[in-house]
């Protein structure tokens, strides 16, 4: 204990004596730890942290699968789920939920749009989460007649109901139906993502159609049962169900998988791993800098260590002393890093334009602290061990005058190795960041088939409280679009669902008259329900035929407008002959034939997914409850400025129809691809840090080398070296380091590029900018960083240099 205190005291004194070097080391570690901590809090939630349920390791998802189509986390129907629940021997309490959105109205207030979920009554019991106010759903609440109840999130209770202590038993109107509040869930709980309200299904599994696959299962493994066993059990049950009901279940099954697979898809997890890898690189680069700094200081301390050895200190004792100094530096860096991390988290929050799922926590909690502590101690060891071992081998030679330590050559090689590694890692990071940013830019610049700039969009749920009927929806659609179109700044207005580029889709199978295909091979198209002015609003002129009649005459007729891509596929080569052709949506014949009356240019439904074909149905034929209201503004008008007019038009037409997500279409696109932008921004920031750290590293090594070679430079000048000779001598080392670093970096990035294809859009993994321009830029900066000390070397005064020896 006494020795430890001695080591600590001496460590602190030594570090204070070298304030500049210590400050640089602490700052480097703080940057590394800071970005790692900030990022880890998010990545941990996505990849590793236990989900916020009771005994979360046993909570699993039960999903519908379609092996032929590659669907692995699909929905199940009530009857399928009921059968699995009844027959399985491996699961405890199988529950079900479906994400939904509700229109909530209370006396004296406009309707609010609340994101929620329909759930089975046992859901929260399966998850092991109980209401903090009131009580959970009871068995039978999810059957017809027992479902007039609702559970609220803590946030909704606090915000909308001012945390009313008498909320339990209060009646609120949800989608026009009065429901009694049973309770309030714990603060921060928003299962499965950002949901704020839960209502029971109100469905009898015995009578529900088996083909209506509306929800995902969540269950708890029985004690002693593995995931594999449960999966085999459920798969066997599903295959028996498919045999029993081949008409609706052929080719379908069910599986048990970790519930995390549902919450974050493979792509998100891959991006999270990529970001975590990137920050680990930053920490490694920072550690390499600090290790180099330690090695540099080692030279100055060689004599001190040799004296300690001569006085009887064992190598272990010396290593421990030196490691203590490094650990003290690391701990100081770690503490500062925690502070930087809190700022980093705030910066990250500012970059995220959407509400994060409740299980993602941007906070410094116990796990994050444990991570930071481990990272700090490991980095202390990482940057401290090599210099400590090197220095501890300082021999008695160091005590003789005019001799260099015997280990200086090896130390030089280690230092060079650190810098090459740093440059290599930085370049990998820079290339990966460049690829991501360029991918994002190319996503952003994708041609969508029309000009999005003058469009303003808002979501409406036309499920007017208590009076939801098809004629009412049609009437509402006509009134809202006419009213908005009457606004002077608006050129045209229409309803559409799904809103193109919002990330929502409605992909359906299509059967074209005269083009029989085997069952299951039917192609998919995006089916859009639109009001008649949609094509004017989006400026889509018919390529042949016509668009829907502006007086609503097509409203209930079995007609459709199709995109050029669809028309060309079945009526090649131009698709013009598609007019009069017929197709049917869905796989059962109940839908009836639709006749094509027009062909319009193909548009992009999603910025990310591959482009597909579209079919447009008149709103009267597909009167969906949730529609997007889109207005085209007059030239010179900022669509954002129209938002208040849109809201007031909606309020005037029907205050009980909730209006939400009011954004310009460019904003809609931006929100759709925020994740790519966010990852690009993060990686860009990390790469910039790595770039700076690597430049500091190169500078440090060359500057140290120059300082160490002052005598040599003096001798060379005495022997006739010109400034250019000295510059060449020093720069040669820099050039060698930079070339080696670039080779390592390009090779590393090249090896990663195959993996990168999985997360890149619209940019080649062998992109010239990333693989040529970026290495050249890094080389230029690194060479400049070595030129500065090299230039100083040319100014060495040989008399001084030789005298100081």
């Amino acid at each position: 204990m006494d020795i430890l205190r001695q080591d600590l005291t001496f460590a602190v004194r030594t570090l204070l004596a070298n304030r500049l070097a210590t400050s640089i080391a602490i700052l480097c570690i703080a940057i590394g730890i800071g970005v790692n901590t900030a990022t880890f809090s998010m990545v941990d939630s996505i990849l590793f942290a236990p989900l916020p349920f009771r005994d979360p390791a046993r909570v699993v998802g039960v999903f519908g699968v379609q092996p032929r189509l590659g669907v692995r986390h699909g929905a199940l129907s009530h009857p399928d789920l009921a059968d699995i629940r009844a027959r399985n021997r491996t699961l405890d309490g199988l529950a079900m939920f479906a994400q939904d959105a509700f229109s909530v109205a209370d006396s004296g207030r406009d309707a609010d749009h609340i994101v929620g979920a329909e759930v089975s009554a046992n859901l929260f019991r399966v998850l092991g989460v109980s209401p903090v106010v009131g009580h959970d759903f009871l068995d039978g609440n999810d059957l017809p007649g027992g479902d007039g109840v609702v559970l609220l999130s803590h946030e909704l209770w606090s915000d909308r109901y001012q945390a009313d202590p008498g909320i339990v038993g209060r009646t609120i109107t949800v989608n026009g139906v009065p429901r009694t509040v049973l309770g309030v869930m714990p603060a921060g709980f928003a299962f499965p993502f950002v949901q704020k309200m839960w209502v029971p299904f109100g469905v009898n599994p015995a009578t529900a159609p088996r083909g209506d696959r509306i929800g995902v299962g969540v269950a708890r493994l029985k004690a002693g049962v593995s995931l594999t066993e449960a999966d085999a059990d459920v798969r066997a049950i599903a295959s028996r169900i498919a045999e029993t009901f081949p008409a609706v279940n052929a080719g379908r099954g069910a599986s048990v998988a970790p519930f995390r697979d549902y919450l974050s898809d493979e792509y998100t997890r891959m991006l999270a791993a990529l970001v975590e890898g990137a920050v680990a690189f930053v920490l490694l680069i920072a550690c390499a800098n600090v290790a180099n700094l330690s090695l540099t200081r080692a030279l100055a301390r060689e004599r001190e260590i040799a004296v300690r050895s001569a006085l009887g200190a064992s190598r272990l004792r010396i290593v421990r002393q030196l490691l203590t100094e490094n650990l003290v530096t690391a701990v100081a860096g770690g503490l500062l890093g925690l502070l930087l991390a809190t700022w980093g988290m705030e910066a990250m929050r500012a970059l995220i334009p959407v509400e994060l799922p409740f299980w993602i926590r941007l906070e410094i909690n116990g796990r994050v602290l444990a991570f930071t502590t481990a990272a700090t101690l490991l980095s202390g060891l990482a940057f401290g061990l090599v210099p400590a071992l090197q220095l501890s081998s300082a021999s008695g030679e160091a005590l003789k005058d005019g001799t260099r330590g015997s280990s200086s050559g090896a130390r030089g090689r280690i230092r060079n190795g650190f810098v090459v590694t740093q440059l290599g890692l930085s370049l990998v990071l820079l290339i990966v960041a460049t690829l991501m940013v360029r991918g994002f830019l190319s996503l952003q610049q994708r041609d969508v088939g029309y000009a999005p700039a003058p469009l303003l969009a808002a979501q409406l749920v036309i499920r007017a409280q208590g009076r939801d009927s098809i004629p009412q929806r049609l009437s509402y659609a006509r009134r809202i679009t006419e009213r908005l179109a009457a606004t002077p700044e608006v050129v045209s207005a229409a309803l559409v669902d799904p809103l193109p580029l919002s990330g929502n889709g409605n992909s359906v199978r299509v059967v074209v008259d005269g083009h029989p295909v085997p069952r299951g091979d039917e192609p998919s198209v995006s089916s859009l329900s639109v009001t008649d002015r949609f094509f004017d609003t989006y400026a889509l002129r018919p390529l042949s035929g016509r668009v829907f009649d502006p007086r609503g005459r097509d409203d209930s007729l079995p007609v459709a407008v199709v995109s050029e891509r669809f028309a060309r596929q079945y009526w090649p080569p131009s698709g013009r002959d598609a007019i009069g052709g017929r197709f049917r949506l869905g796989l059962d014949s109940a839908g009836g034939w639709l006749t094509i009356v027009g062909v319009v240019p193909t548009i992009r439904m999603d910025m990310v997914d591959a482009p597909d074909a579209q079919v447009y149905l008149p709103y009267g034929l597909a009167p969906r409850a949730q529609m997007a209201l889109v207005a085209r503004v007059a030239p010179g008008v900022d669509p954002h400025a129209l938002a208040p007019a849109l809201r007031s038009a909606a309020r005037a037409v029907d205050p009980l129809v909730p209006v939400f997500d009011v954004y310009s279409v460019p904003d809609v696109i931006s929100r759709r691809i925020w994740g790519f932008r966010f990852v690009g921004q993060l990686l860009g920031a990390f790469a910039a840090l790595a770039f700076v750290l690597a430049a500091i590293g190169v500078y440090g090594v060359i500057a140290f080398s120059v300082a160490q070679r002052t005598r040599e430079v003096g001798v060379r000048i005495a022997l006739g070296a010109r400034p250019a000779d000295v510059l060449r001598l020093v720069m040669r080392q820099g050039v060698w380091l930079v070339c080696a670093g670039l080779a390592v970096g390009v090779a590393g990035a090249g090896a990663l590029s195959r993996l990168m294809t999985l997360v890149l859009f619209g940019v080649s993994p062998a992109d010239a900018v990333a693989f040529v321009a970026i290495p050249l830029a890094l080389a230029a900066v690194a060479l400049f960083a070595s030129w500065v000390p090299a230039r100083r070397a040319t100014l060495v005064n040989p008399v001084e240099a030789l005298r100081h020896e």
Partner: protein
Amino acid sequence: MSELIRLVGLERAYDTPAGRTWVLRRITLDIAGGDFVTIMGPSGAGKSTLLSILGMLDHAWTGEYWLHGEAVHRMGHKDRVALNKKHVGFVFQQYHLIDDLTVAENLDVPLSYRDVRKHERQAMVADVLDRFHIVGKKDLFPSQLSGGQQQLVAVARAIIAKPAVILADEPTGNLHSTQAREIMELFRTLNRQGTTIVQVTHSEENAKFGNRIIRLADGWLEGTPPAAARTSTPAPTPTA
């Protein structure tokens, strides 16, 4: 013998917080080609500074310096470096071999700065290795040599580019007596072959190898001017 070096009224001073400190005062001196001159004097007398000025490593002096009839005092830095390369070889007390280079590579360094072609350099290095009987050591690094061997290599390096004058600063200061005598014998041989030697030493033994001794004290050449004048005479301000 023709005149190789001529100094007229050469002075050198350092500005320190305590004021101006004179290191060399009014040095007027001629050294003929083929001389073996020994500069002696107590520590701080200005011996090494004089040697640095002769070797054109120090430029902050005033007065006249003629080398081979060329006016060094009128030359710019670049020309001085060129003149150094042409006529001067150095031997230092601490040998100052470059640690990371082998013996042969150390010998190559002065030639590489004189733009000698590679194959000529190789021949010259081989010749010098042979002349100094160090062929067997050509691939060794300085740390693998004894002090005497290192100084031998340093002398070999000093003469490899065939300088007119070798400036040696305490060349045997770190050597024991036998090694010191060998090095001095080597200097005498070189001198007899026509190389002018200017050495700084404290050793009367070494001084006997030369043909002329110059003594310095407090920056003045011994005997000039009278001691009374040393404190009263104003001196010109040195310029860099």
